[in-house]
């Protein structure tokens, strides 16, 4: 009797065991083969996407240069007209000023560079959010600089204009809808002393950044800064005009 009982047990257990092993081998096999195929196509997709992005960026660079050349030609022929007529001369002066102010032409002047960077010693345990630069930190600094009399600002080569937005989509920061990564270099044209004083004011932006975050802030005064032009002033206008017309008809 006893011997039989053990036999039954062992048979059951070994059967189950054998089944499990064979099932497991098959299962892992199927997964590993499918997942390696999966990653292969994933990898290819990534490669293609990466190439496309790089290609677009190259074209953008060329087009930006082209746009700059055209703008230069435009102001050349405006200058010619200004030389011919007194009235054109006046308009020309105003045009030049508003173009600088709205960021449609590249400008130079003295100013400061504020660079914001993620903290270099990122602890594993603490809240990562306190150690990286958020879009609102950039907005705070920009706002303070304008309020202190900055005339023109660009962030990592993106010139700010009227409708510029500094936004966050997932983990990336977009300035003028263009992806930027830290360190964020905010170049501002204005009187360097005034700008620095405003930022360093007690209870001011730099102090609050120090108190509430762990990001690294650097200030640098510059005798000469070159800021690029903002591109994209016409697309929005066209869209809004189109939507207004649509409503009229």
């Amino acid at each position, binding site marked *: 009797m006893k011997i039989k009982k053990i036999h039954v047990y062992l048979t059951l*257990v070994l059967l189950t065991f054998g089944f499990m092993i064979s099932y497991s081998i098959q299962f*892992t096999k199927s997964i590993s083969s499918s997942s390696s195929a999966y990653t292969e196509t994933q990898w290819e997709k990534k490669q293609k996407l990466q190439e496309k992005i790089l290609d677009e960026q190259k074209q*953008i660079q060329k087009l930006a240069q082209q746009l700059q050349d055209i703008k230069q030609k435009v102001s050349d022929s405006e200058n010619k007209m200004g030389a011919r007529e007194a009235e054109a001369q006046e308009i020309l002066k105003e*045009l030049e000023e508003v173009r600088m102010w709205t960021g449609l032409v590249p400008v130079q002047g003295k100013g400061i560079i504020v660079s914001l960077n993620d903290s270099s010693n990122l602890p594993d345990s603490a809240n990562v959010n306190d150690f990286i630069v958020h879009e609102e930190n950039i907005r705070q600094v920009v706002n303070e600089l304008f309020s202190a009399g900055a005339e023109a600002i660009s962030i990592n080569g993106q010139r700010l204009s009227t409708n510029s937005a500094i936004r966050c989509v997932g983990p990336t920061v977009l300035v003028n809808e263009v992806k930027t990564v830290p360190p964020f270099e905010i170049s501002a044209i204005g009187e360097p002393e005034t700008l620095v004083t405003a930022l360093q004011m007690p209870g001011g932006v730099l102090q609050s950044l120090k108190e509430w975050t762990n990001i690294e802030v650097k200030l640098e005064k510059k005798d000469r800064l070159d800021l690029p032009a903002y591109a994209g002033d016409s697309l929005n206008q066209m869209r809004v005009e189109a939507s207004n017309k649509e409503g009229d008809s």
Partner: protein
Amino acid sequence: MRKTRRIPFTITVISVIIGYMLAVQFRSYNTSAVAESKDISQMRQDLQKVMEHHQRILTDISKYDQLLYEYENPQNQADSLKTMKEELQRIKNFGGLASLEGKGLVITIDEMNLDNGEELSSLSTVFDDDLRYIVNELFGSGALAISINGNRMTPTTSIRNVGESIQVDNKVIAVPYTIDVIGDPDVLESAMKLKGFEEYFKIINKKISLKKLDKVVVPAYDGKGMIRYMKPLKEGS
């Protein structure tokens, strides 16, 4: 007796093996795929942004090409002067130096009616960041012109807390805040809703209302752009 003690032992050993196998399987099933597909959607987003950038520059190029053409092929002298004036007006509209009207959205932020006389806490203040955040979202969603309580946003506008109040370019504004926006009303409205501003302002006892209108008027900035320290960057200087 010895044989019955072997059975639990066998079962223990087998259970351990099965447990181990399950763990291994679970791990091999669970890794990689998720992280990688996240990467790809991120890259797709990047690509989309780059393509939008491309589009913006192309539109600018054709805009300025057109302008150049009009300058170089004028019907007569007066004509090219007119073109210059038009271009100046266009930039003034863009920069906030001229009033604009068009379809858009009117946002008001006001005190919420508290029926049971709840005490207003320090939580109930709207800060400069809140307004900056809204303006930023609106421009990011394609707004063309914005004013807050009649103060037009310009390229150099600052919104900041000074003491208890908020100043827009050194002009004090107070509750209720009215934000007039020109742009596609549906897009602007959905951007506001998507970001959850309603819930956010509820926390600080404020009511935010959105009104889509066919005609919104945004006034001109009543100052002038200050230019003291910058000059145009000339090629090769």
